[in-house]
């Protein structure tokens, strides 16, 4: 019988899991008018209860440290333990963001160095580490684009172009920043349809958001022409760095013609995904956009680092203080560990692993875009599929094999998409196990389809009723 309790169900009056030093100052009376009427109904448990509860919960999670986790466009690479130790140094974790600058020179230096290294890796001129995640980086990048046009007195540019393969955050970010969104089609090679792009361009276009390689895992070979077309009509190019793991050390967004971009440190630079955050989405810009970056900017003068707030053209702030600094420390340690040579190995191996898997699976699964892929590839339905087994069923069956499924049903332009990104962290044995599982599942769809229809069988819970969860929401324990 697997563990099935809520922490509140472990609660018993009189138990406690904390201790505080005895109050060593005289008490000051509290006026009743300020007080809450009832105690917050939090659990009352012992320390043993807390530890067993959360340890049991942890065992209901799949994670990179358990096995391969090939979620496309999420770059679920291994999270080096050294980086955790580095971020836990009290000199990083126990410093206050508003301490005098003279007492945080090491932290400011780390940020300054990190910005410099990210500029080198991407070909940008300046970086801000402030955005807390990729989506916030996108919003910042778009705010910069908007500010740039307005600064030039160009007030008509209210439209952002995104391809139909874009991550959902792209149009959502554009809309959040007050832009209208125009979607352009992909062509039969899985790249932006140039005619459609040309038709969408105009003097009201503020910019184009592009992921390169795109979410099909394919490099946009026309990128130079695309950049020219967008620039010629006065727009700017935004690089969504979600797929940067494919190109580090091989090509740089700055050289491709991009003007502004974000990186996801929790993807390319190995920081843990944390069950859904914290991430970090630094934003880089070319020279002409530097002044629009969020404040403050870490600067250096006479060997002293300081925070420069005097930036009249800045878009302002999007997050308190300087970003998810603890995440930045981890990524910094990663770049030091890998160096230029290591980062190049990363992209080469990530791309090789993806192509190896694609090659091994394309006989059994439809491959809508059959060409060399970058760090990920997208399969469609099974070729031999008499029972109309869906991608969801394949994904759930993978759970029975003890594996995390790929990203499913994305990108939206591929029917029944299975988007696989193995990353460089997987050995050939690990890739082969995953391939074997997908081959075995392909055979099961013909020989024992009921296994798929009822999957998963061997997980802590089985198929969950998501419809009633949304229809009659129970969102806390006393609902």
């Amino acid at each position, binding site marked *: 019988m697997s563990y099935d309790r809520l922490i509140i169900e472990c609660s018993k009056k009189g138990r406690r899991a904390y201790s505080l030093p005895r109050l*060593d100052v005289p008490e000051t009376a509290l006026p009743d008018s300020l007080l809450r009427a009832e105690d917050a109904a939090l659990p009352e448990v012992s320390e043993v209860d807390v530890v067993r509860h959360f340890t049991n919960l942890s065992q209901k999670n*799949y994670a990179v440290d358990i096995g391969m986790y090939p979620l496309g466009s999420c770059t679920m690479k291994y999270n080096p333990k050294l980086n955790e130790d580095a971020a836990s140094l009290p000199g990083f*974790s126990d410093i*206050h*963001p508003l301490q005098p600058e003279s007492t945080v020179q090491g*932290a400011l230096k780390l940020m300054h160095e990190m910005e410099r290294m990210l500029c080198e890796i991407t070909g940008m001129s300046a970086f801000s580490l402030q955005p*807390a995640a990729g989506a916030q980086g996108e919003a910042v990048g778009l705010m910069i684009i908007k500010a740039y046009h307005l600064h030039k007195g160009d007030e008509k540019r209210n439209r952002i172009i995104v391809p139909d393969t874009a991550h959902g955050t792209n149009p959502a970010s554009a809309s959040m920043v007050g832009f209208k969104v125009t979607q352009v089609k992909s062509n039969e090679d899985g790249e932006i349809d140039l005619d459609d792009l040309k038709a969408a361009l105009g003097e009201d276009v503020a910019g184009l958001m592009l992921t390169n390689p795109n979410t099909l895992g394919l490099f946009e070979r026309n990128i130079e022409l695309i950049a020219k077309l967008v620039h010629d009509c006065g727009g700017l190019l935004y690089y969504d760095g979600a797929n940067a793991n494919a190109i580090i050390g091989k090509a740089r967004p700055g050289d491709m013609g991009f003007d502004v971009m974000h990186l996801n440190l929790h993807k390319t630079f190995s920081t843990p995904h944390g069950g859904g955050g*914290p991430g970090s989405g630094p934003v880089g810009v070319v020279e002409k956009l530097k002044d629009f970056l969020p404040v403050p900017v870490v600067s250096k003068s006479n060997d002293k680092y300081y925070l420069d707030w005097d930036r009249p053209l800045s878009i302002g702030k999007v997050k308190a203080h300087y970003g998810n600094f603890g995440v930045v420390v981890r990524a910094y340690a990663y770049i030091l560990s890998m160096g230029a040579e290591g980062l190049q190995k990363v992209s080469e191996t990530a791309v*090789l692993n993806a192509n190896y898997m694609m090659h091994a699976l394309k006989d059994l699964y439809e491959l809508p875009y059959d060409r060399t892929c970058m760090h990920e590839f997208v399969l469609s339905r099974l070729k031999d599929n008499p029972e109309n087994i869906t991608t969801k069923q394949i994904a759930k069956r993978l759970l029975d094999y003890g594996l995390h499924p790929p990203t499913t049903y994305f990108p939206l332009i591929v029917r029944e998409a299975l988007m696989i990104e193995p990353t460089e962290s997987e050995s050939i044995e690990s890739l082969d196990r995953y391939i074997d599982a997908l081959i075995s599942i392909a055979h099961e769809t013909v020989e024992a389809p009921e296994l798929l229809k009822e999957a998963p069988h061997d997980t802590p819970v089985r198929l969950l009723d998501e419809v009633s969860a949304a229809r009659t929401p129970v969102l806390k324990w006393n609902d």
Partner: protein
Amino acid sequence: MFPYVPATDSDKRYMLDKLGLDDIEDLFKDIPDNIRLKTGLKLDQPKAELEVMSSLKELADQNLDASKAAVFLGAGAYDHYIPSVVKHLVSRSEFYTAYTPYQPEISQGTLQAIFEYQSMICALTGMDVSNASLYDGASALAEAALMAADATGRNKVLVSATVNPESLRVLKTYLNTKGIELMIIPMHDGVTDTEVLKDKAGSDTAAILIQSPNFLGYIEDLSEAEKAAHEHKALFVISVDPISLGILRTPAEWNADIAVGEGQSLGSPMSFGGPGLGFMACKSALVRRMPGRIIGQTRDINGKRGFVSTLQTREQHIRRDKATSNICSNQALNALAACIYLSTVGREGIKEIALQCWHKAHYAASAMTRTGRFSLAFDQPFFMEFPITSDLDPDVIQSSLLKNGIIGGLSLEKYYPELKNTILYCVTEKRTRLEIDTLCSVLEGLK
């Protein structure tokens, strides 16, 4: 060989052979030659673990951290005690090396923990529903404003000048880019000027945003603001310190529509300002307008209790440009830390911590003002932070304190030009009587 990249040369050869390729470069032929990086990146050589750690230690050692100094600085980031269990449990790699729970059957650990987090945020704030967390308290306030504009169809937000200036800056950025008008209601005697607020609130107001305890540490009387908001059918948004809710009146008791705040105090270290987390809770009627993930309880096909991401049609991966927000990753691991923290301190601990902050801060304030040379800037009830005015230059005070192993408070003139020579001090439960007495004697010894 690199420890994080298992492929050997012979593995690579084997794989390339399978692909019918000679060289790994053949995989990069789609990148036009013009834009290939031919020189290699100008970064240092790879470093061994020992070397990386020593580089990082060197940087860390250049910072003065809370293990070496007594921190009397707050203003939005707080040096509270974090029980040992929090770090140990958050460091279980089943939690921190997982991602967003896209496959609920193998993510029940994360999902249940977030459900419990939501439940405890509701218990603390008294609100009906909580989301799974946002980036920080500042962006949570901004998201609340956007949510209110969306819910009311109105385009103007009133915010008190006593809101944390970092949050105010973020709010400005978010609203400015979206074309929503932001009006700042001035401060009077250290709290929101409710006369001006009542005067400015109207049928075009989407929301009234107030923080309590406010940036100066003062506990605001929110009754007039609540009336002003609801009289005009605007939403009432309160930003709150979650620790203070161990004892203070809840946002629900003030009849808030949305409660937000910074949750770093709940088990996350200060970490130079991030990562922490933003929490957001609201009345049930607003749940479908909430940004970010929400976890709900359900059953599996065998009737067993389980948890899933729910009400996802609000979110960017489904609704794209029509989503309630662009947020995707949130601060899940910090929400987990908050969940473990709140489970650990529990019903009694959250009260005791809040009370210790209260008593120690009030002891400190009265000790600091006993000679008459230092005085409280305003006469208002406060929680654990308070502004102290004197005739001394804040920089002089700060450097004298630093020499005595104390990180002093925040000089307020940068944020409120009228508050010259005024410093905001914070006293958490971690501060001892000895540290407070030392602080006072350093202050009293200043010429």
